[in-house]
């Protein structure tokens, strides 16, 4: 968990983040830059509309055929020599990875960026079993050095500025001298990691798209660490969530275009790496074994609900967080979740339980900025509202994890009073009379009001009710 978050709950972590001007400045700067870059590459509104509709349709078609496509992906992979394993839970996935590594006696592993591996807490798990698992994406490498988790799914070290990174490198890397020059810092990381790529006995990566038709695993990256991790070591293990599959190879280019443009405003990344098998006949390099681990980890439960299954359309571009007014102010760590920001607010409560993570469902003003930029049209706001309802309604038939367990006593009492007030006219009139006559006495410290009044003026009701004013103006009661 985050080093900055003093408590494992969202509210105090968010409050602490808001008081950290350095953190806020780092995020504000980064998010402003990302929003401007994205807007520049989607300058043509017609193209954006049509491409987005296509991306959304491809992802919806994929989900409609999900079990069939996963089986087809498995067959295609097997045909080309990629071994496929399935895991229901992160524990199972970790055990599979460990088993493969042990079979090869691997003790040094290099990793490309993978959010699924963050779900698995794979690095910690492997360290516990005596295997060094080194992140090779520069951002991931930086935060691993500092014992942190990613604060953004695309730019994991976005919360740090160059001075913080310079100090970190100076302290943690033996051969590094202190420098704040980005090119020099990058060169230091290159030197350290080249050695690691050379020595590693296995490489681990995520998957951006897995093509059922051809059995191709697609990886999107700029640094080359993904290619290094998947092609230099003799064994490659790729990790994917069940939703990463697409049906046809031609489904990939539109999604790839939407992904890179939405994420960082790039029309194309430096590398697009398509892996359709281990080292082939006559090939001189490439891994001799490629393994694909397909992880569920709660996704099939999300899939069971036709409305909520839209969560699984996500292609992990991060545009929703870049445009989120809440994320920009508190950063990624405050969410205390693998996936922060708007997508995390709908995903995490579904995988960890709407009771346990009710806090995340409330962390939104429902402004809809995320919905506007989502390249696959996930109705994040509608799903948030739906999940808020699931959190408080104890419907036993609901497929949502911990449905009905997100209730607060205070909220329940407040709503019961509200209901009673509106059910009984005499009680309503009494409350209205009291509110208008005692308006200056309204206690701002009332628990139900304090969240509002702690940072805003206490609302003062008018001195007379609308009923009274209208009656006084001579309008008779209806």
């Amino acid at each position, binding site marked *: 968990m985050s080093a900055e978050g003093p408590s494992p709950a969202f509210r105090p972590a968010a409050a602490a983040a808001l008081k950290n001007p350095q953190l806020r400045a780092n995020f504000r700067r980064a998010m402003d830059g990302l929003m401007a870059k994205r807007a520049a590459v989607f300058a043509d509104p017609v193209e954006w509309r049509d491409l987005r509709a296509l991306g959304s349709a491809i992802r919806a078609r994929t*989900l409609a055929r999900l079990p069939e496509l996963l089986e087809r992906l498995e067959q295609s992979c097997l045909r080309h020599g990629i071994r496929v394993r399935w895991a*229901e839970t992160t524990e199972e996935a970790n055990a599979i990875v460990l088993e493969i590594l042990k079979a090869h006696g691997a003790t040094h592993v290099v990793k490309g960026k993978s959010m699924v591996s963050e779900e698995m807490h794979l690095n910690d798990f492997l360290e516990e079993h005596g295997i060094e698992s080194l992140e090779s994406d520069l951002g991931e490498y930086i935060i691993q050095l500092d014992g942190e988790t990613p604060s953004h799914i695309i730019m994991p070290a976005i919360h740090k500025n160059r001075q913080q990174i310079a100090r970190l490198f100076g302290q943690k890397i033996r051969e590094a001298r202190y420098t704040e020059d980005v090119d020099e810092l990058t060169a230091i990381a290159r030197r350290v990691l080249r050695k690691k790529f050379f020595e590693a006995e296995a490489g681990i990566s995520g998957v951006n798209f897995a093509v059922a038709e051809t059995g191709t695993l697609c990886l999107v990256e*700029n640094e080359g660490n993904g290619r290094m991790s998947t092609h230099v070591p003799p064994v490659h293990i790729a990790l994917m969530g*069940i939703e990463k599959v697409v049906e046809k190879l031609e489904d990939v280019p*539109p999604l790839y275009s939407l992904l890179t443009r939405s994420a960082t405003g790039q029309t194309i990344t430096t*590398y697009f*790496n398509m892996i359709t098998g281990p080292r082939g006949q006559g090939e001189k390099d490439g891994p001799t074994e490629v393994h694909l681990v397909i992880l569920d980890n709660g996704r099939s439960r999300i*899939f069971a609900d036709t409305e909520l299954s839209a969560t699984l359309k996500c292609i992990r571009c991060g545009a929703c967080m870049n445009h989120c007014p809440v994320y920009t102010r508190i950063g990624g760590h405050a969410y205390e979740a693998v996936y922060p920001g708007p997508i995390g607010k709908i995903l995490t409560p579904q995988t960890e339980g709407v009771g346990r993570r009710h806090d995340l469902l409330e962390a939104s003003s429902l402004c809809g900025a995320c919905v506007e930029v989502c390249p696959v049209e996930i109705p994040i706001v509608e799903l948030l509202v739906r999940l808020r309802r699931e959190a408080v309604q104890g419907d036993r038939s609901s497929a949502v994890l911990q449905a009905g367990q997100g209730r607060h006593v205070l909220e329940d009492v407040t709503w019961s009073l509200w209901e009673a007030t509106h059910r009984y006219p005499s009680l309503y009139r009494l409350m209205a009379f009291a509110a208008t006559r005692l308006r200056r006495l309204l206690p701002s410290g009332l628990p139900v009001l304090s969240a509002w009044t702690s940072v805003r003026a206490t609302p003062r009701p008018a001195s007379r009710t609308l009923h009274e004013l209208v009656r006084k103006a001579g309008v008779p009661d209806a």
Partner: protein
Amino acid sequence: MLETAREKILARLRGAGARLAAPDSDFGVMARKTWPAVGRYPRLRRMMEAVKAEFVEATEASWPQAVYEVVRSQGFSTLLYGPGTPAGQLLSDSWPAAEGPRLVPYNRPIEETKRQLFDEIDAGFTTTRGGIAETGGLIVWPSPEEPRLLSLVPPVHLALLYTDTISDTFWQAMRSEGWSAGLPPNALLISGPSKTADIEQTLAYGVHGPKRLIVVAVRRGANT
């Protein structure tokens, strides 16, 4: 017998998925992106130069000499290449034998050559299958003759591109060439030298892959 994770996951998905609709996918937005043939190379070059790729232009007859000139003038002492392709053959046939930079064939398994590949090679040479006009980018299909690491581990990547092999878009390239009928174990798009923006979103080149990408662009035919 115990149910496997695979069966349990698939059973849960089968129980739920039939209720979702599969909408039609209109690829019109991909199909309408076209450029006149003569405009493709200039566009590709402009897009790739924007991400720091370098270009050298040559003819069918002059490109081996152009490659040699780049290697010599940049002071590289070794160029790794695949001797088994026609281009590789041409390159070695026309490589000046005497002194100067050395042409090193990549013709043995990585297990025997890893140290040399990482420590002694200044640049790697590959052919390309084509390019992409829309976004810039080279299509590179590694093969037994041109191994995967040739375009990755050496600090400089020289790539031979015939300008008449450039497609309008990635989507059109894979469709017109029928990629879905058979892809090699590894296929790549490469649009520039390795880069990162992970520190303060400041762009830095040459993080893990090649620090430089030099495209040797060849215009085929007399008048182009």
